[in-house]
């Protein structure tokens, strides 16, 4: 923008610089996600022990998910209320995910 003397133009310019920084981050996140996708498929072809393979694959998936959530979904810089809502959801999510497994482990009849 050429009319830099106008006060509004100044804010628009500052805003654009800010967005440019965001865009650079998005490109870096994109590259990281691609690399991690290649890594996760590569690890599959190495044929590791099942337990180790599950751990590695889920760690990679969690890193990828965190990158998407933090940067694409802007969770790195969000209002407190959203964090509280998500924290509560995560508690329920993990209870849902692990309750079945725990009751199974507690049952002596079933193989674990």
């Amino acid at each position, binding site marked *: 923008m050429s009319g830099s003397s106008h006060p509004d133009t100044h804010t628009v310019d500052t805003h654009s610089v800010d967005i440019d920084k965001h865009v650079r981050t998005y490109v870096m996140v994109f590259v990281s996600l691609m690399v991690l996708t290649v890594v996760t498929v590569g690890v599959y072809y190495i044929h590791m022990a099942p337990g180790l*393979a599950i751990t590695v694959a*889920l760690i990679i*998936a969690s890193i990828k998910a965190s990158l998407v*959530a933090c940067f694409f979904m802007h969770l790195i810089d969000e209002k407190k209320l959203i964090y509280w809502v998500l924290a*509560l959801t995560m508690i329920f*999510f993990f209870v*849902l*995910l692990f309750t*079945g497994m725990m009751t*199974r482990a507690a049952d002596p009849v079933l193989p674990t």
Partner: protein
Amino acid sequence: MEIPYTVEAHPETGLNNGKIGIWLFLTSEVMLFGALFATFIMLRIGAEDWAHLKAEAELNIPLATVNTIVLITSSVTMVMAWASLMRKQVDRYRLFMLATVGFGFVFLVIKYFEYTAKFEHHHYPSTNTFLAIYFTMTGLHALHVIGGMAFNFYYAVPGAKLWRTNPQWLTDRVEHSGLFWHFVDLVWIFLFPVFYLL
């Protein structure tokens, strides 16, 4: 009648209604997919020979890898569409938004080929528990892709009119639509290793 807090933040939440609304909806989605992931875990640990059931399904890893790349790329074009609106570049916005819809379509076409290959081999949800949970979860995910595409197309073409009267509202709507789209990407990030690689 004017709807309050579409653009400006609600004093109680510090957020506009669209933002809080989409996040509450996404939490319900976490529970929906969470229930199915819990089901998956129980089916897997309860199976006599899961590896055999999975081998029988003959999932196509190269195709799924391509689909993972397609969906990640669509997330980037989605966020670039929002960034274009922030830069007030409406033409670029529309291009990125339509690219996002296009990548969603490519994802569905690849999924269609995967599904038809399964049906040709007489592999159905009723064949075994692996295929049952595979079709249920990837099918539900595909429905989400279709839903996201519908919203994104609406905001790219007819809904973009809003730019002339209330540009901030359109920018916020695109951000919220993006939150849903990234969530769909995020679910796939877990579905891909869980079904194809492990």
